[in-house]
């Protein structure tokens, strides 16, 4: 594992392609094989702050912003947040922030993280009206601590209950008859994925790729066989694969068992953000965090309880090619 300074040195040339504004716009930045790979490895940054939660158990918003800055600076190699964010998002496009409020209050993407990302996006030059925070519905957004707003001059916050789903289904592999959220297909040019790390009753782990279940009308139809290959197939649908390009994963609070709902007795605070572009490498890293916590409290592995997240390996196979799950090919940077 390299230190942050070493990493910045080795990546100072900027392997991120997302910021390269060409005449062709976003389409030219969608080289799935090149985006997340540096020196043949996918980068994943895990940034931690043990003091993220105050004594009252509440998140310290200033520390969340600082943690985000540290994670993004490490990933991009730019200490200046504005410069760093310009490497990640195009300034003149609509940027969606896909949260996860499914688990309800207590185990949803934290509003403090959403606000921190919105603040930096605006400072980098994204107009407030071009930022769209979204999820399945108003209830999920409220679970995150967000208030619905459709005012186009400000940061917009609403769900698919407002914008609806496509009538024409999309498909890839087992993910057939998938009606996608219009927010994804029509409104956003690029999506920042803001999942929350959780154990999952069927899939084993829910994080980056599983958060895409929130972009389809009937996610329950993709639950068979531990969501495998449902999760991998869904992420291979072109519009999902191409627009959802960067993950800022909320691992500030998590459940290591009993998820995806809120089970306070299984709650823990990793106090971390996990960021990167390779959704498979991100999920592999997240899975290992859950396993380490389960081992720490004396619980069996997810394999041991019959729900290993097999979809991660499926997503990495040649038929899907969504990223890498081989630890030797993941450049994990912990700061």
């Amino acid at each position: 594992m390299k230190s942050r300074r070493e990493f910045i040195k080795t990546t100072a040339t900027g392997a991120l392609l997302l910021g390269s504004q060409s005449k062709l716009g976003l389409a030219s930045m969608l080289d799935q094989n090149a985006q997340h790979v540096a020196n043949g490895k996918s980068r994943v940054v895990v940034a931690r702050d043990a003091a993220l939660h105050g004594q009252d158990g509440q998140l310290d918003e200033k520390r969340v912003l600082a943690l985000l800055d540290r994670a993004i600076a490490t990933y991009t190699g730019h200490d200046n947040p504005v410069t760093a964010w310009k490497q990640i998002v195009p300034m003149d496009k609509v940027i969606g922030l896909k949260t996860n409020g499914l688990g309800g209050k207590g185990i949803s993407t934290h509003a403090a993280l959403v606000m921190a990302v919105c603040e930096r996006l605006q400072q980098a030059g994204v107009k407030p009206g071009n930022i769209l925070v979204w999820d399945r519905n108003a209830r999920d957004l409220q679970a995150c601590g967000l208030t619905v707003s459709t005012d186009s001059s400000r940061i917009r916050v609403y769900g698919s209950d407002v914008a609806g789903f496509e009538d024409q289904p999309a498909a890839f592999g087992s993910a057939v008859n998938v009606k996608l959220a219009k927010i994804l297909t029509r409104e956003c040019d690029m999506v920042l994925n803001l999942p929350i790390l959780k154990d999952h009753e069927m899939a084993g782990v829910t994080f980056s790729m599983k958060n895409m279940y929130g972009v389809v009308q009937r996610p329950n139809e993709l639950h068979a066989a531990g969501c495998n290959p449902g999760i991998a197939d869904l992420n291979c649908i072109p519009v999902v694969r191409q627009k959802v390009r960067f993950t800022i994963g909320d691992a500030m609070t998590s459940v290591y068992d009993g998820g995806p709902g809120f089970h306070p007795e299984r709650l823990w605070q990793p106090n971390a953000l996990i960021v990167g572009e390779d959704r498979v490498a991100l999920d592999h890293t997240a899975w290992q965090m859950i396993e380490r916590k389960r081992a720490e409290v004396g619980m069996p592995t997810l394999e041991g309880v019959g729900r290993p997240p097999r979809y991660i390996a499926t997503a990495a196979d040649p038929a899907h090619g969504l990223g890498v799950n081989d630890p030797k090919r993941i450049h994990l940077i912990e700061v």
Partner: protein
Amino acid sequence: MFQSKIMSLATATLVMAAAVTFIGCKKHQPDPFPASAAVAGWDKTSETRTFPSKDLWQYIDGDAEQYVSAGVVSTSTSDYKFQNQLEATLDVHTMGDAAGARKILETGTSDAKPVQLGDAGVQYAQSVIFRKGPYLVRIVAYESTPGTPQALLALAHGVEAKL
């Protein structure tokens, strides 16, 4: 003519009897959600939402399957607040039979503290789960305070009394 009147009267009587039976049955469906102030300190802060088995994923997608496989018929939920501070959610799962409720309760609660509620119950620092007949009740608080366990227990007893 006379026979026709008798037939009409008999039909009307049958319809009324069916209606009375139906209304009577409906009356026997308990409403387990205590109204505001019915349990000291607790206010009901949202409408009760009910999800039949086939739509349960809309409420607890990912968790729904374990309830469905245990025979859930429907799940109702409402939010509560204690002394205008402590927020909690009350879920009442109506299972097909008591065995279904037992199956869910016995899943993953081995480290919980047993409490005398319904047919069986357990408590954690921020949640209470119990079963009574075909009902499985779960109350979860979103904050852990010294008074949380006692407050949850009081609400649970209020629910139990209505089942």
